[in-house]
């Protein structure tokens, strides 16, 4: 399905025997905010805690954001009716971009009806620009298997049709588990001067902590603010069962080194599911071949739109976005900004040719000016 070889980072990295690209599909519409992903991640990777043990003042979120120690992070967002309407409109607008209109069946308040709309929805969803329209060059390829979803078998009496409108319209509590995007064009990897960051045979991006010198260039290179340097924290649980209690000042491993999600590279090599996906009770976090994850994600968006939940949209599934599409695909129920995600992420190195060209022109210009000055001076 990934027709463009340039979009396949594994091939791009010149692996002789590329594995299929692996990735997550995080479906926030079925996330129950249990944070099992956060805990499983820290347990497996033995990451330090990330906390002063105080309420952050952000609903049930007390770890704040992704960072050097927190590689999965669940956001909690409480929203009233106005924001829900806005989200529904913006999601619908994504669908409406030059496409036949889609919406709930006849009689529902949002009136836009057609039973043929699924394929266009899929296209729009595949575009997945998530930026509320415009500016990011949507153009995903429709996939034939998605059209199977355009069934109109849901009669007005069916439970699905009956719940076309979310039944609690005035309030909702969004939960979303964020993670490293494992970009097709990864800013962190591009700017790493030591080669500590590398592209794995699965198309993911991993830090080699014994190579990293802690320069921090990658931190500025990530358009999502995912990668960070590890500074402090508590590593050992207070009472390790086999040893005497350790003081809070126990040495943090890889102190000063840049850290982020490895998509459980070590587990992957043993055909194991990453810890977060393994622990997720509702399959909100799915793991598999990137192509099939993206396809599943498109189907799910189409299904939700069919149910009238037009607020659903994809994030990261567009290979033409500023990072060439991400390995971790998300289904969101509002604008990306709501979840603290950049609406239009862009790998900083994308501007390099342009910058080189501009810099080259500037140099040439200055040389020319110098030459002119020199020449004209000579005439004096």
């Amino acid at each position, binding site marked *: 399905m990934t027709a463009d070889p340039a979009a396949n980072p594994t091939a791009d990295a010149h692996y002789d025997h590329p594995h299929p690209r692996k990735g997550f599909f995080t479906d926030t*519409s*079925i*996330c*129950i*905010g*249990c*944070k*099992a992903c*956060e*805990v499983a991640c*820290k*347990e497996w990777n033995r990451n330090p*805690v*990330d*906390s002063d*043990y*105080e*309420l952050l*003042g952000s*609903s*049930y979120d*007390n*770890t704040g954001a992704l960072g050097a120690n927190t590689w999965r992070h669940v956001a909690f967002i*409480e929203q*009233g009716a106005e924001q829900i309407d806005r989200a529904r409109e913006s999601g619908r607008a994504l669908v409406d971009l030059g496409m036949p209109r889609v919406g709930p069946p006849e009689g529902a308040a949002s009136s836009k009806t057609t039973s043929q709309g699924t394929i266009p929805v899929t296209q729009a969803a595949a575009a997945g620009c998530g930026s509320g329209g415009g500016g990011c060059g949507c153009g995903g390829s429709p996939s034939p298997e998605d059209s199977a979803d355009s069934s109109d078998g849901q009669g007005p009496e*069916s*439970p*699905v049709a*009956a*719940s076309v409108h*979310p*039944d*609690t319209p005035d*309030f*909702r*509590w*969004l*939960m979303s588990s964020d993670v490293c995007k494992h970009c097709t064009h990864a800013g962190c990897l591009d700017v790493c001067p030591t080669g500590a960051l590398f592209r794995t045979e699965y198309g993911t991006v991993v830090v080699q902590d014994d190579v990293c010198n802690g320069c921090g260039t990658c931190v500025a290179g990530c358009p999502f603010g995912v990668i960070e340097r590890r500074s402090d924290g*508590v590593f050992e*649980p*207070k*009472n390790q*069962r*086999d040893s005497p209690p350790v003081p809070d000042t126990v040495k943090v491993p890889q102190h000063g080194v840049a850290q982020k999600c490895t998509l459980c590279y070590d587990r992957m090599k043993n055909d194991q599911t990453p810890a977060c996906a393994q622990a997720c*009770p*509702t*399959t909100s976090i799915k793991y598999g071949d990137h192509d099939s994850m993206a396809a599943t994600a498109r189907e799910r968006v189409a299904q939700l739109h069919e149910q009238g939940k037009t607020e659903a949209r994809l994030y990261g599934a567009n290979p033409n976005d500023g990072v060439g599409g991400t390995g971790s695909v998300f289904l969101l129920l509002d604008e990306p900004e709501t979840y603290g995600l950049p609406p239009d992420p862009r790998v900083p190195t994308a501007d390099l040719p342009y910058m080189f060209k501009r810099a080259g022109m500037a140099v040439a210009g200055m040389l020319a000016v110098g030459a002119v000055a020199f020449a004209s001076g000579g005439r004096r």
Partner: protein
Amino acid sequence: MGTSFGRGGATQSLQDMANADCIVIQGSNMAECHPVGFQWVTEAKARGAKIIHVDPRFTRTTAVSDKHLPIRVGSDIALLGGLINYVLTHDLWFHEYVLAYTNAATIINDDYRDPEDLEGLFSGYDPDSGTYEHTSWSYRTAPGYEDEGAQDSGEDEHGDQKSGRAGGDEHGSGGPPLNTNHPDRDESLQDPNTVLQILKRHYARYTPEMVRDTCGISLEDFDYLARAVTENSGRERTTCFAYAVGWTHHTLGAQFIRTAAVLQLLLGNVGRPGGGIMALRGHASIQGSTDIPTLFNLLPGYLPMPSVDKESFDEYVDAIAVKKQKGFWAEAEAYTVSLLKAWWGDAAQEDNGWAYDYMPRLNGPHGTYQTVMAMLKDEVEGYFVLGQNPAIGSANGRLQRLGMSHLKWLVVRDFNLIESATWWKDGPEIATGELRTEDIDTEVFFFPAANHVEKAGTFTQTQRLLQWRHQAVNPPGDCQSELQFFFELGKRLRAKLADSRDERDRPLQELTWDYPLLPEGEPDPRAVLAEINGRHLTGPDKGKPLSSYTQMKADGSTDGGCWIYTGVYADGQNHAADRKPGREQDEIASEWGWAWPANRRILYNRASADPEGKPWSERKKLIWWDAQHKRWTGPDVPDFPVDKDPAARPDPDLGGAAALSGDDPFIMQADGKGWLFAPRGMVDGPLPTHYEPQESPVVNPLYAQQQNPARELFPHPGNLSAPEPGTPQAEVYPYMFTTYRLTEQHTAGGMSRWLPYLSELQPEMFCEVSPELAAECGLEPYGWATIVSPRSAIEAKVLVTDRMTPLDIGGRTVHQIGLPYHWGQGGDAVVTGDAANDLLGITLDPNVHIQESKVGTCDIRPGRRPRGPEVLELVSEYQERAGLTPSTSNTKVTDPQRELTAEQTEDGSQ
């Protein structure tokens, strides 16, 4: 549930919830507290089911539900009774099912009087003891059988005796016995004393308007719920209810569940795929802790604990069940003899009543709260605290801690130095000066415990499924499993008593205590499970495991430690360790673990077929009668005698399973039917009736009787209750509060607050309040608040959130405050804080002695609580303003003049 259906466990598996067309989650925050089981709700939703969450708060469960109905805490019977009324008045009940499988057509005694006639009391109330006498609730005996006389049944006892044993617990695996084998029925349902007619009258006032004014649920929302439930019930569709401690932790908790049972029976949703009532039990083996009980009043398999009035084995057995009566409970003698043979082996013989006299006997209730009260009176010397943290996790934490300070010795077995082990040095009472460490005489022993990955054994989880845990690592240091601890304790006690000639030591001396040891020196847990399963003791199969409880004999030729678990070790195989992956078997997944009874996954599944034995519909078929082979068949194990013809109508006097008719799907009930009306088994009424909680700002809109008149009270200066509503003093504690768990922490924190990875996710005690309440009281978001109840004052950070909704209750705005209860004061955990349960009082449900910990009243004010002794002054300043004494709100009958006179007038008019 035991009283309604015959067994006190969830009626189906969690996996079966995926088959539901509508799921109502009420009294449970399933996504947060049972996140793994919740995957089947997610699956049901993906298949098109409607998910409705009825809860005072908008929780993580609500976030993924279709609809939220905010409800006032403690008003669930009003809502469910409203649904029953809706079903009856709109004639939406499943006629064929109800007529054949429930006691709808059974006729009740003419003496029965309903709370509708008596201002909130049922007939038979004794104001002196505050309990009920049940005779007037009995079935009427059919004409021609009046002479069979009162059956030789222990259940003709008075309510106070039964309550003294928490008799409601005993129906965990078998319904109560009846007064007659030949109840009178009117299949036309016209007799005014048929159960259905009584139901109609009883719930006639439970209208949508009454629901609105009692629960705070709008007419539109009620209509939504009623339509969702009724449209998704019937031949083709099923609705499932799920509850947890949001229903049980009330003074009428058992009746909450009964209301749901009545509704589900009327809708024909019991014994069928995607139906039933999912009882979500607490942690990994809470179901197991009632099957093989940690309760004072039960023996394994829900056999009752002997009481002092049952002097002999025969008296004891006769009181459990009438042998002439229908159903498998009639074989209780075989189960009891097998149990006693498992415990005392050759020392249990027929001539000594199978060692019946070796068992201790109850002379009253000895539940945890009665025990705490006795501690305060210096009547208890020692206390084992295992797998619990009463200083934080039990209601009225202050009394729990003060009680422990009266002990001579205290043993705490836990992973960590929990607050129940450290209250003597850094508990709240040390801070207030009520206790001084140097004055406390209690000797505290701490034993480190092995955790669940450090020991092997079984968990019996919420759906009665036994799953074997394999040991992953050896426990570190001195940590021990419970099995090893008690095995060693028993060995030491027996060694001390080895030479004793005292009769009272014989039970210990003669106990079978001979488990084989593993190489590491631990007793082999598989040997324990095999003993629980039971063996043939004589005959050609001597020594071989039993394969079913039907093989148990009352002649001493079998043993078995828990009859309902018989079969888990059939053929010498540990079926709890069966691990066939789901993808390799059908959806019932019979080869994953082992479920009691007899590995049935959906109970009462005979009801999944119509009276003739045909599935009600293709979509909902599970078990059906194969007329050709004369057998019940289907993917699940039939919960019915497998070769009993649907048309069979044997003589009820045959007794036992043989007496069951072919259309008696509730095989543990004495009449084989599901009980809409419970003539026996409930000590506080045969039908669920709305009463207000012990503490409520609302006057009972239905009856003069304010609270459950049979609730158990503990008047004590440390256990004061708020004044009755409607008085100026009641406004001292104007708000309702409810307590609950969060996903990130585990109950009283022993398993989570010592773990940094979990503690960082929910680090601090907080309260959840609506923006309206925050404005009313001047509370700042994420600032501090002090919450004062009639017992205590605690502080918490404030979460102001739209997830809390003020409710309009009959013109009054009722604010509810949410309080998670995980934190406690102490110095050892990673995170500490004030304990919500300190606010709670101790008032109990009379059926099962469960405390009302889901609701109380309080005041809330901005700022931190005072430190040191000043916090006591704050609490007593409130108490004085409210004029509280130990008798406040602690009279059982609210308005004797109206209620008791009503009864007399009724009687006089006879």
